[in-house]
């Protein structure tokens, strides 16, 4: 292992290292640094001797994989971006079954994809610690799709779960999770939410431990053969393990009380990031209430909770997304305190969206009558009176998807339906394109379009990205051929997984650890799936794209257009690195007739109009020249 020590001033504890990957590798026990929650997970894994890490990038967990990608070579461990979450989990399971500590991370929907293998994994168990990191996205800030509460999976899969509330806990809980996993030969969940993953906070470092990276899978005549009737025995064993972990949860220091000695009719039970909001709400209300903070949230410490609630008149349960703890506490109260009033996410706190300090503060106010020194509700009402123009999420200036959407729209009529998928191109949902009439899950566009084409003669086009195609698009494409359907599918190949931060995918020819590997051409796979009508078109070649879309829509067999063009953010960075100029354009006012196609139909963020005069903002323009190609008056010219 190489660690950069020379820049550390021991006396002042200062670290002047810019690269975060170097900061995360500081082996200075006791030093305090600032880490993103996701980075702290990686640090926790490194302090636990992890040997294998895998992921499929998905916000809000993307930086876990990206951080592993930066440090894996330096610390001599294995890391990969897998093609989907199920493969990622299976890889990590294979390592843990061979005696190497492993971790896998993904967003909530990724857990759905991987769950088919996560459940049997709990049955067969592991031989070295394995931590499954899953992040939910309350309020859908970063991943759209759904406000799924992944804590149900812990209950469904008999898998223990820990929920850190800040960066320090992200690191510490990762270590506890590895130890717990190894002690009970069970995979362990770490459940994050967006405000934990994407919060930076102070972390006190421990020591990085060099773990095993090589192991051996030892056969066992029954243990790993998940097959009846032995399954019934392992199921019983799982329940025994969970009961043993329940006893640990009664004592473990990460389930702790605040203001334990305060006598009050109202108590609070909190987990995850919302514990922080509770502490601040009490501070702002100048109140002391007894709070039980749960870090190990499955299985829960039933005895401690019974003791806590038996003398209370009411309890507020504060948790992210669904009323899961609340329902458990309701049933525990039936034994020890049937009169107890339980407030939580079944109605007193919002039933959807992320929790906020405001919501918790107002609920405590409502229960206790204690008020904040100003009126939060009136304050927000004043704000809501203001007129504030929206700023849609946008495809970047020069984004190849914009050109593809423009061409597709101009080649089709109003009667066309567009099936969307998951990736940057989801932003086609907004004007001027509105090319995402249905959005489901990774790879779903191909399955959906197949069903629609089977029952209708509608004009339908499905869009799917390159990473998404590799993730779940291949089986669905084969299905269209096998079952003789005739959709038009446009695969948006921008040579990267852009939305989550430009992770390499199989088109690129480079692995997550930076090694050269075989680049897999999408058109080759499409042909191998049995598709006869395949064409690769440069996304910036609008005319060619329009022509191809028009032709392919007439086909009576499945057709695929691979719209190929590197993500413009990467292209610009590469050009700058190579010292190449990025061309700049402006509009010749004498030729421009103000038709507005470049602005109202192409929707380029670098173009604007004031008093009927169109202009290009040089600071924003990335030189894609698509506007030049579509301008009917040839009024857009290169200036340098």
């Amino acid at each position, binding site marked *: 292992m190489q660690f950069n020590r020379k820049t550390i001033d021991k006396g002042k504890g*200062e*670290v002047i290292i*810019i690269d975060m990957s170097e900061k995360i590798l500081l082996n200075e026990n006791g030093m305090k640094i600032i880490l993103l929650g996701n980075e702290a997970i990686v640090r926790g894994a490194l302090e636990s001797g992890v040997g294998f890490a895998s992921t499929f990038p998905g916000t809000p967990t993307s930086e876990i994989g990206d951080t592993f990608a930066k440090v894996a070579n330096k610390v001599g461990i294995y890391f990969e971006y897998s093609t989907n979450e199920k493969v990622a989990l299976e890889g990590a399971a294979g390592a843990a079954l061979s005696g190497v500590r492993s971790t896998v991370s993904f967003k909530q929907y990724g857990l759905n994809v991987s769950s088919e293998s996560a459940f049997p994994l709990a049955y067969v168990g592991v031989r070295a610690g394995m931590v499954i990191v899953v992040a939910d996205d309350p309020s859908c800030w970063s991943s759209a799709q759904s406000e799924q509460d992944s804590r149900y999976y812990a209950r469904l899969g008999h898998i223990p779960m820990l929920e850190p509330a800040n960066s320090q806990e992200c690191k510490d809980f990762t270590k506890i999770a590895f130890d717990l996993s190894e002690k009970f030969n069970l995979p362990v969940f770490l459940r994050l939410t967006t405000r934990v993953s994407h919060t930076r906070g102070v972390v006190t470092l421990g020591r990085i431990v060099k773990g095993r990276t090589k192991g051996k899978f030892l056969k066992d005549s029954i243990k790993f053969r998940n097959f009846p009737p032995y399954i019934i025995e392992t199921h019983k064993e799982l329940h025994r393990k969970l009961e043993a972990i329940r006893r640990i949860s009664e004592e473990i220091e990460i389930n702790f009380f605040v203001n334990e000695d305060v006598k009050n009719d109202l108590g609070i039970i909190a987990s995850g990031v919302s514990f922080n*909001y509770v502490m601040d709400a009490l501070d*702002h209300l100048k109140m002391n209430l007894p709070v039980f903070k749960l870090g190990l949230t499955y299985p829960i410490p039933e005895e401690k909770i019974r003791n806590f609630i038996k003398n209370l008149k009411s309890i507020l349960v504060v948790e992210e997304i669904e009323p899961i703890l609340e329902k458990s506490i309701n049933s525990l109260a039936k034994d020890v305190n049937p009169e107890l009033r339980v407030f939580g996410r079944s109605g007193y706190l919002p039933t959807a969206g992320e929790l906020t300090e405001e919501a918790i503060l107002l609920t405590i106010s409502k229960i206790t009558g204690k008020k904040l020194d100003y009126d939060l509700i009136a304050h927000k009402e004043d704000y809501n009176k203001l007129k*504030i123009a929206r*700023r849609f*999420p946008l495809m970047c200036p020069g984004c190849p998807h914009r050109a593809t959407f423009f061409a597709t729209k101009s080649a089709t009529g109003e009667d066309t339906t567009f099936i969307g998928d998951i990736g*940057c191109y989801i932003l086609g949902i907004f004007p001027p394109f509105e090319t995402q009439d249905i959005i489901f899950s990774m790879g779903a566009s191909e399955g959906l379009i197949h069903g629609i084409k089977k029952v209708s003669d509608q004009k339908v086009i499905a869009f799917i990205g390159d990473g998404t195609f590799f993730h779940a698009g291949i089986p669905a494409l084969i299905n269209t051929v096998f079952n003789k359907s005739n959709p038009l599918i446009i695969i948006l190949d921008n040579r990267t997984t852009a939305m989550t931060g430009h992770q390499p995918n199989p088109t690129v020819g480079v692995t997550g650890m930076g090694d050269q590997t075989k680049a897999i051409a999408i058109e080759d796979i499409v042909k191998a799936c049995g598709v006869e009508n395949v064409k690769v078109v440069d996304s910036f070649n609008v005319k060619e794209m329009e022509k191809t879309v028009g032709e392919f829509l007439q086909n009576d067999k499945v057709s695929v257009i691979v719209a190929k063009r590197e993500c413009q953010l990467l292209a610009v960075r590469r050009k700058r690195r190579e010292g190449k100029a990025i061309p700049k354009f402006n509009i010749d006012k004498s030729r421009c007739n103000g038709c507005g196609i470049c602005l109202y139909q192409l929707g380029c963020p670098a173009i604007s109009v004031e008093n009927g005069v169109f202009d290009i903002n040089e600071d924003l323009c990335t030189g894609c020249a698509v506007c030049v190609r579509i301008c009917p008056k040839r009024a857009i010219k290169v200036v340098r």
Partner: protein
Amino acid sequence: MTESDIIVTGIGGQGVLTLANVIAWSALREGLDVKTSELHGLAQRSGTIPCHVRFGEKIYSPLVLEGKANLIIGLEPLEALRACYYGSKKNKTVFLINSYEVIPLSIFVAKEKYPSLNYIINALKSFSANVITLDASEKVKNTTGGIISTNIYILGYASAKKLIPLKKQSILKGMKEVIPKRYLELNKKVFDLGFKAGQ
């Protein structure tokens, strides 16, 4: 001591996260507890999500309570307006606004209206004790040829005006931790420019 609650807002590419991160490291260099909250992925593509920075002796929530911000830095006026509910007259919030407008596409494709700077400043007044507007991007462009380090100009200005309760030395240390070495000298120059403007 009481906590310092700061909101940094703007649009993608203006250095919102970098500025928040510099303030965070500066606070750590004074031995304080600190948290920031940011959003990535889909949220980042819009660039309209404010970044929260809170520091003090002990910090729990990564988010500023509505109305409690001490300082709101708006690298773009419309985005300052969008985040203004974090400020209030009662808590004597100060707004520090860069007057450089970035017109959102909604103005053109959804026929919405970009408010005048006067409308914005008047609206902000009812959520604050003081609104300061700076033509920071223009000043930076005149000096460096680009607008990229506008965030650091504003940091320098805020430091001189003592709007961020951290020593100048600590802030310079924070910059060293966050800003890539090859851009550090330029950013120090821009910081000084802002600092002088604030003196």
